[in-house]
């Protein structure tokens, strides 16, 4: 089959004596050498693949979580009505108040009045700008979540066109990140060539996502470290709570930023809702870890000191929050790369290495 010469169509009767059916066990090189033919059954390319059930579940959890927060698009909800009505009232009150002040200022002197008008205009303009930024952030967030779903689907179905479209969107998402330049160039080249949909997505994931994943992992680890440290040495429970909450918020924002969807205020609420949903769904599943590990980890530390035990537990909680945030912020599912578990990101919480030596 070399060069231009194409192999002619051939037929081999399986009931022929010269034909050997290879059933995997005995490679009959002898008979081939003598001019015989070996027919080897190959694995069925179309058989449903028995993929481990967990990744699919994890992916499903992520998509559900995204749908509850980042992609939520409810036309009507009582909560929404309450907040919008309340917001309307408050802004009307503020408006009334501002008008009054400006009127009062004009009553005293025209100059003061004009200053008042100028300040009020500045407030309105900056509010508008902030709202615009907020909306852009929300759209971006939703875009990432949608991209996640469509890439997951394209990979499932091995759909070449969808994969190409998704890869192009990924590239434009990271177009202003200099550190991804090389990976982007590689993926872009491959989009032009004929690559299967699934392969293209896997290549994009390995090249584009891997550095971002590493950065996110680092962030999670350092947040977990800080949290467990501060909890262990803090004098009051209230300080712990505030610090843990503050770190969690910071971590969420940071991870969203790493994956390209830096949230504003409202966007953060949506993101937090998604992360909360993801935590709730995967709670029983324990992302890549068993509950036992957590209990054991807690136990060893707790035996040393109750405070240290709390520190480890809080660190673990932070890690879990970080991992959930990672899952919902990532613009593509974990497929070619393994989804990290608590133990991969923050091994120090499990009494590995130095800590264990300290204990013994």
């Amino acid at each position: 089959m070399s060069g231009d010469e194409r192999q002619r169509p051939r037929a081999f009767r399986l009931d022929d004596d010269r034909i050997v059916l290879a059933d995997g066990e005995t490679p009959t090189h002898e008979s081939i050498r003598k001019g015989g033919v070996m027919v080897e059954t190959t694995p069925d390319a179309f058989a449903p693949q028995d993929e481990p059930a967990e990744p699919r579940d994890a992916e499903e959890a992520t998509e559900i979580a995204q749908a509850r927060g980042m992609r939520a698009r409810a036309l009507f909800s009582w909560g929404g009505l309450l907040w919008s009505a309340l917001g309307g009232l408050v802004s009307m009150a503020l408006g009334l108040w501002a008008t009054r002040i400006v009127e009062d200022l004009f009553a005293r002197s025209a100059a003061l009045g004009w200053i008042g008008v100028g300040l009020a205009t500045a407030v309105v303009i900056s509010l508008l700008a902030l709202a615009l930024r907020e909306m852009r952030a929300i759209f971006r967030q939703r875009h990432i979540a949608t991209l996640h779903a469509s890439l997951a689907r394209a990979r499932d179905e091995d759909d070449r066109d969808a994969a190409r479209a998704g890869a192009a969107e990924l590239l434009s998402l990271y177009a202003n990140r200099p550190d991804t330049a090389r990976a982007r160039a590689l993926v872009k080249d491959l989009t032009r060539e004929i690559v299967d949909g699934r392969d293209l997505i896997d290549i994009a994931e390995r090249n584009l996502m891997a550095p971002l994943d590493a950065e996110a992992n680092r962030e999670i680890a350092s947040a977990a470290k800080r949290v467990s440290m501060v909890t262990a040495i803090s004098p009051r429970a209230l300080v712990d709570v505030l610090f843990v909450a503050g770190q969690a918020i910071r971590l969420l924002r940071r991870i969203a930023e790493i994956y390209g969807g830096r949230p504003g205020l409202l966007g953060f609420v949506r993101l937090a809702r998604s992360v909360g949903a993801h935590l709730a769904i995967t709670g029983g599943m324990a992302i890549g870890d068993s509950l036992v590990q957590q209990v054991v980890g807690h136990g060893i530390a707790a035996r040393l000191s109750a405070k240290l035990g709390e520190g480890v537990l809080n660190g673990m909680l932070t890690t879990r929050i970080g991992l959930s945030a990672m899952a919902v912020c990532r613009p593509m599912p974990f497929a070619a790369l393994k989804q990290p578990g608590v133990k991969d990101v923050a091994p120090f919480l499990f009494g590995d290495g130095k800590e264990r030596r300290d204990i013994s």
Partner: protein
Amino acid sequence: MSILSDFLFETRIAASSLADYVTGTGLRLGVTGLSRAGKTVFITALVQNLLRASTAAKDGERALPVFRVHAEGRLMRAKLQPQPDDHVPRFAYEDHLAALTGGANVDERHWPESTRRISELRLTLEFERRKGLRQGPSVLTIDIVDYPGEWLLDLPLLTKSYAQWSRETLEASAAAARAPFAADWRGATLAVAATAPESEAEAKRLAELFTAYLRAARADAYALSTLPPGRFLMPGELEGSPALTFAPLHVEDDTAFASGSLAAMMERRYEAYKAHVVKPFFRDHFARLDRQIVLVDALSALNSGPAAVRDLETALSEILVAFRAGRSGFLSTIFRPKIDHILFAATKADHLHHTSHDRLENILRLLTARAIARAEDVGAHVDVVALAAVRATREAKVKQGRLLGEKSELDAIVGVPLPGERIDGETFDGKGEVAIFPGELPADPKAVFRGDGLGVPEGAADYRFVRFRPPAPRLAKDGEPLPLPSIRLDRALEFLLGDRLQ
């Protein structure tokens, strides 16, 4: 007059689609394909897979992994419903399935006979809706129509006058590829003057010669496709009626024929054929489709040669003009349904190794390039897939030492060829299994259009696709066959129905 009749025609379509909308939220799936593209097998396999999927899942079989509603476990049940149109026969699903599986005797299994008349089937899927305002249990009704593929060739006639059709038919028959078997009829036609007085005997003689020519062109060895009018090949209940007793004549465009002349009689019958045969068929079955799958048997045309491939391309692009593609809105859903998902499927993909499927898809994409561009222009979703509704082969590697060099391996398929199929100088008896290497499709899809070959003999072609017997059915625990094996049927289902089953 013609404006009025067009208006009436449109009104009827709008009325019947309004009726459809009011009576239920169904979906009309158009299974389009020339004769022998595998429409009947596709419908049978589709229905059987849907009906049996949930039973198979209980037995631990994983069928249709890509079809989301099933893979997610939301498909509760599929069942056949009584046929809605009382004047159309029901699709003989049970008979076709029995033919495919052999019924009581497995050795009797064979592909269903070619379709001779129109039939219809209604299937309802009970599923759990996951998204939208109406979450929870839901029902989707799917209407599927089966008909002889030959009739599809008539759709392009709707826009052609008798003179235009005559000229085109005569021109086509003069091409080198068709000349040999068109000679008899061409000779006879050119000898007859269009102004000759009308005569039933003469008309009958010409129609018979014309039919013989069309039949010859369709034979397996040539596998030509552009052969209207379709009822000449598959007359259905109209055999012998005046509407089928006409033939093209050598006439000038844009001339009025003297009344009483042979040409006038032929033209009248041609118009009657359009009015009484083609239009009702189009109106009742094609003008209100929501989804469409176009099955194309590219392999037979490839077997025959480049001329047959080009002919297939012409036939496909002419037919696909007749369909209404476009994005569906609310109003258009009610009054003028448009086809918003079109899937082009190269059938019988099991006749070649899966590594060649990409090339087959590329060839099909090129074959239907015009139709794809038009459909995408108006906003319809289009996809191309290599598919086997019933998979008759498995795959294997053939290793051979002496002839091919040490490392050579051939990607082959293994199955039981139909009796009489020939390849590599061998003729098969339809008994034993054979590993077949069908040759390689060219990497550049344009290569299959180059040349003039038609009915290329087996020894001269670079590839040869052999037809196989249907696979021996595997039985589930309840004694009924498991879902028939298929290639990418689930992907086709997902593309065609997926968005309605969210």
